[in-house]
């Protein structure tokens, strides 16, 4: 007997929207160590909800990357062998072929962690079952059913009112970045650093196996978005069907990414470091914007993922060698145009007075191919230099780029405001 649809929230329910959102935002952005007992209890609940026996083997790793590697190891083990032999064989066949300093360290670390944790547990009894990844059962099927049932009981307006409160900040700005980074980086790093006599086929296989694991994960705290929605529906609106996501919700409140297997589960830690800008985008000027306990980092500049040098040590040479224009622009912002111009040894025009701006002067650089080297892609840097000298005898400089076809500083300034030159020359005041 279906309940009548909930078409509007009561005042008491509406009053809970903000607290619920804030509570889940807190979980989604948490940098506290995982609450391991609570996460493991949540896993057990999620398995039972899916009609599965809770896993007897529980492996904790320190980052989403480590989790992907560990999950790929578990998923691709040759069958029918026990204990140390298994690991030696795996190592010999595939993982041992992976060379390169960083790779060796990471693979070795993860391999040791997985082996040590698994060996201590009931591996022998479950070894044949492990390899079956059960995300489909634990997640896809349960969620799909829950979503349909809840949708059937809640009117569109309420759905819209509750949805979206948390999603944008947690998944959009953070979780999605992690997802993108792990997927992209795993591919890049494995591909780049496998060398020696490893044939292309084996190398690609390893890379693909690890990268595949990105989509086989459940995302723990990064799923706070829609879990907050269903949690609200369950506890505040009283939709019983939504209770089926409780187990997954508890993992999300306690841990990072996780991979459910039949008989085993890999859980991972939450980050130790998370820095964002005023618009909630990943951003940090002097180090990783996101980092995990094993040191795995994401460097970001106002929401754009960048290599570490762009933040910690941008130089004109590194900028020129970088093929991605977005990253180049972030690195230049970090370095500053005056720093870039000095390092790149660019020629500047003679200074001219900036109209309406006593004490400030304009200079225009030679054409540069920083954003493209075709003639129509060349730009010049317009530098505005402060008239006043700051401490240390430095005059602060600000820069922006204009089309290279513009050849004098005043025209360049006028272009940047979209004004005719003669209008800009009449500028009365600048603040």
């Amino acid at each position, binding site marked *: 007997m279906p309940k009548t649809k909930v078409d509007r929230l009561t005042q008491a329910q509406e009053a809970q929207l903000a607290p619920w959102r804030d509570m889940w935002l807190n979980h989604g952005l948490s940098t506290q160590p995982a609450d391991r007992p609570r996460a493991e209890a949540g896993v057990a609940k999620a398995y039972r909800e899916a009609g599965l026996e809770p896993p007897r083997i529980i492996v904790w790793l320190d980052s989403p990357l480590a989790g992907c590697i560990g999950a790929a190891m578990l998923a691709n083990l040759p069958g029918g062998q026990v204990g140390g032999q298994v690991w030696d064989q795996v190592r010999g066949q595939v993982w041992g072929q992976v060379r390169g300093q960083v790779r060796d360290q990471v693979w070795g670390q993860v391999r040791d962690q997985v082996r040590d944790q698994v060996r201590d547990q009931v591996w022998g009894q479950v070894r044949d079952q492990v390899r079956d990844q059960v995300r489909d059962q634990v997640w896809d099927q349960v969620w799909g059913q829950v979503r349909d049932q809840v949708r059937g009981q809640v009117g569109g307006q309420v759905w819209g009112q509750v949805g979206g409160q948390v999603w944008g900040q947690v998944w959009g700005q953070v979780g999605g970045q992690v997802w993108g980074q792990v997927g992209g980086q795993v591919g890049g790093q494995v591909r780049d650093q496998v060398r020696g006599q490893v044939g292309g086929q084996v190398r690609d296989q390893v890379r693909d196996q690890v990268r595949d694991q990105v989509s086989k994960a459940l995302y723990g705290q990064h799923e706070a978005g829609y879990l907050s929605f269903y949690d609200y529906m369950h506890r505040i609106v009283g939709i019983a069907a939504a209770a089926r996501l409780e187990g997954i919700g508890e993992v999300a409140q306690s841990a990072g990414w996780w991979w459910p297997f039949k008989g085993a589960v890999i859980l991972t830690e939450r980050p130790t470091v998370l820095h964002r800008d005023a*618009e909630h985008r990943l951003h940090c000027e002097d180090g990783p914007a996101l980092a995990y306990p094993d040191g795995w980092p994401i460097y970001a500049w*106002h929401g754009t993922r960048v290599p570490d040098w762009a933040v910690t040590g941008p130089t004109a040479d590194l900028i020129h060698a970088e093929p991605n224009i977005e990253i180049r622009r972030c690195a230049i912002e970090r370095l500053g145009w005056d720093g870039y111009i000095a390092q790149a040894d660019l020629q500047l025009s003679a200074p001219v007075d900036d109209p309406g701006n006593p004490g400030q002067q304009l200079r225009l650089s030679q054409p540069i191919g920083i954003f493209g080297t075709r003639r129509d892609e060349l730009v010049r840097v317009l530098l505005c230099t402060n008239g006043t000298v700051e401490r240390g005898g430095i005059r602060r400089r600000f820069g922006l*780029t*204009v089309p290279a076809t513009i050849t004098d500083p005043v025209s360049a300034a006028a272009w940047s405001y979209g*004004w005719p030159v003669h209008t800009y020359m009449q*500028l009365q005041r600048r*603040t």
Partner: protein
Amino acid sequence: MSTTFAALKERFNTTTEFVGEFAADLDIPVLTGPQCQGDVSVCPASLYGAKPTFGDAVAVTGAGVEVIRGGAMNNAHTLRSLDAGVMWRPVLFSDEGVALGELTVPAGAQCFLEHPEHGFNGVAAGTYVIGHQREQAEAVRMVAD
């Protein structure tokens, strides 16, 4: 025509937290000519060059009308006036892509563009195009304040 920073702060009684160092008696001229406030520009319509199209007008009052909100620091450039008839029409379309809207200040009235880092710019009677600053990267993009 001019006024001072302190007089304006008191006149509008804003809750704005000014970041720059502004002397209380700092002169704020009220001008009819072209001006710039950081990466925002105020240009008499007759000197602008292009002819953007603008939408419906809203009245500019002491409560303020935001012209644009900055990028990284999330600070806004805000129009304020205590005189009747000051109107703001947001841009619908502009060829050069930098126009933000049209400001009309009737005879005898004054309008002020306020920003936490830049203080105030005073605008006298006239019609103006208020715009943004652009730069050329791999495509034209707006300068982030």
